[in-house]
């Protein structure tokens, strides 16, 4: 074995790779908020809904949490054209990951909705608090405490999950890593550097999320 590692070849492409990291973050950010939008409706339907909406919400969650996102996006990307819908690779990935995130966020947000006890709301009403005050002083602390840590973990998971966009030709961090490694033929070095970028990126993301949580919601979220 006489192989010399040459990281300089990879470091030349560092700005290009970091641009890809930005795309990964964007994908995670968009799917997170779009998924949260679905998740709020799903969670409310699962907790307070009628029988039909409860059934719909829980079958949505079981279907999307028990099948791989990759195959779901394959279906969106390769099967929808048969029905006359042509998606670009980026929008197929975004839609697929959003539907996936929606299912997981339904479960996370449901725990938050459950954590508010009806008796506490009644007590707050009895004390003459307005709706906004109840939301701010009674509901939000409970919800934040139960769901903040899982939410920030889930965001990190989405950053990692966005890597499968590379398989559809989206040029985010992993996609650009594949491009770089096919150009400079330094595959192991390139992917080591990319792994390091992912580690740094997610540590930055979770520590800033923990900081926001501590300052804004008084939640003690752990980074490690």
């Amino acid at each position, binding site marked *: 074995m006489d192989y010399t590692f040459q990281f300089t070849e990879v470091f030349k492409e560092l700005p290009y790779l970091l641009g890809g990291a930005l795309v990964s973050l964007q994908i995670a950010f968009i799917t997170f908020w779009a998924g949260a939008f679905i998740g709020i409706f799903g969670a409310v339907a699962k907790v307070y809904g009628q029988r039909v909406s409860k059934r719909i919400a829980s079958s949505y969650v*079981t279907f999307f949490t028990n099948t791989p996102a990759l*195959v779901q996006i*394959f279906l969106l990307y*390769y*099967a929808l054209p*048969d029905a006359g819908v042509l998606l670009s690779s980026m929008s197929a990935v975004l839609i697929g990951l959003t539907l996936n995130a929606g299912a997981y966020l339904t479960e996370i947000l449901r725990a938050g909705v459950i954590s508010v006890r009806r008796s506490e709301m009644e007590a707050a009403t009895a004390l003459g608090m307005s709706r906004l005050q109840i939301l701010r002083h009674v509901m939000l602390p409970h919800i934040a405490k139960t769901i903040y840590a899982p939410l920030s973990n889930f965001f990190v998971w989405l950053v990692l999950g966005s*890597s*499968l966009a*590379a398989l559809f030709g989206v040029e985010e961090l992993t996609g650009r890593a594949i491009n770089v490694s096919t150009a400079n033929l330094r595959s192991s070095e390139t992917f080591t550097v990319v*792994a390091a970028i992912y580690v740094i990126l997610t540590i930055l993301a979770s520590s800033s999320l923990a900081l926001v949580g501590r300052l804004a919601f008084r939640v003690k979220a752990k980074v490690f």
Partner: protein
Amino acid sequence: MFDQITEQLPLFFSYHNLVFILQAAGRTLSMTIIGCSVGFFFGFIIAVIRQSSSRPLLIFRLLSIVYVETFRRIPFLVILFIVLFVIEPLMPGTSLFGIATVSVCLLSTAFLSEVIRSGLESVPAQQIEGARALNFSALQTLVMVVLPQSWKVIIPPAAAFIVMFIKDTSLASQLGVIELTFAGKMLVNRGFSSVLGFGVVLICYFALSYPLSRFAAYLERRLASS
């Protein structure tokens, strides 16, 4: 679209296609089972090392923290590529299935060690101190005091993670391991409608992971009340 699917149905569900899909499902399942067993074994060792406070183990403790935090923060796809590019020159001729299984092992060790560690931490410190006062050795404390109480905390999230690993193995199709997703791609390449090909694969994945997640939910309810 529907005409095409109904036309292809008898050809799609021929005996040899079914055997092909079942073999692929078996490969998916065996990657997960091997990966999780190895992951449980090493994850347990890592969790115990991280729990211990002895000074000679300090270096191992640091190493295991670095290992866990690194592999929890790298996408599975990138782990697959790294393992491929590291193993291939060192051990030429390793099967792609082996490479994918090693990647699943690396991933599951990191995640399951965190699950096991939170299980070990759930046992109150007084009990461990009590065991020490009764002159239990470290191993005896672990086996007779900590484990009987912590497996209840470990099993439900561990089952949820195993479901995640089943789904993650779909990325191994990118290496060329003939597991479920790859089988779906091959069937679609052979001219079957992609709705049919990927739809059946999706159903197979669901059939593999749904019983497990139901089991996890059942255990969570059952063990929480007791």
